[in-house]
């Protein structure tokens, strides 16, 4: 059963802003409070807002359960592969290998309060994005699984 038209329009209007805010939290995870898990949870609330505003059959026409599940698996794989690449450079698992190699994400950081630079912190932003992708898939697919158990008619 759909919610009323007001709720659906409000959900449509709010959804992109919630996505932008969530991805901001994920991408600035190494500079400002927040990080992958928190930003992923914010993005998942945007998806859940759509789920409760529309009915389950209408949602699964656009967003499949399999797609969200694959998103979650992709995030976990990206996380583990990023940690595993360190072995190729002769250092241990989970070492911050990007800090010493290559020009990207490698700017020096001054000690103490500073304005912040996105191009720092080596492997940490990559892992933030990976965990963000994983959490957004996981939390929204759990709600979608629970909605599949409801008996509703359009």
């Amino acid at each position: 059963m759909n919610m009323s038209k007001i709720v659906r329009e409000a959900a449509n209007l709010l959804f992109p802003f919630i996505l932008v805010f969530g991805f901001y939290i994920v991408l600035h995870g190494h500079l400002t409070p927040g990080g992958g898990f928190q930003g992923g949870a914010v993005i998942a609330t945007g998806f859940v807002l759509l789920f409760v505003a529309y009915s389950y059959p209408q949602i699964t026409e656009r967003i499949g359960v399999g797609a969200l599940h694959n998103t979650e698996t992709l995030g976990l794989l990206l996380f583990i592969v990023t940690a595993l690449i360190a072995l190729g450079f002769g250092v241990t698992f989970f070492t911050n290998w990007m800090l010493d190699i290559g020009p990207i994400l490698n700017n020096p950081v001054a000690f103490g309060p500073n304005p912040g630079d996105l191009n720092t912190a080596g492997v940490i932003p990559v892992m933030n994005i990976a965990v963000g992708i994983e959490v957004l898939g996981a939390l929204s697919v759990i709600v979608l699984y629970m909605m599949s158990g409801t008996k509703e008619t359009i």
Partner: protein
Amino acid sequence: MKNLVIGATVLILCLGILYVGVGLEFGVPLFTDMDEYFVSHGQEQTGGNNIVTDIVFDFRGFDTLGEATVLFTAVLGAGLVFRKRGEDEEYEYE
């Protein structure tokens, strides 16, 4: 005998909570070696301004790997509970 054991456990728990609540001063931790190290070396060693993210993703990466695995397992469990049932599969809702 059983009541005695339960009573002693509750008494020790209450005394412990009372000691934590009254005996220790808030904001003055007993052991500060680790957090002082993180605060003074975290930015320089990892390059991130957010010390919490530095610890979660760099100093204690295995912890985060376990957390991600727990989340994955939780989704698998939810999918198992809410899976599509076959026509011949017997089940009942309580």
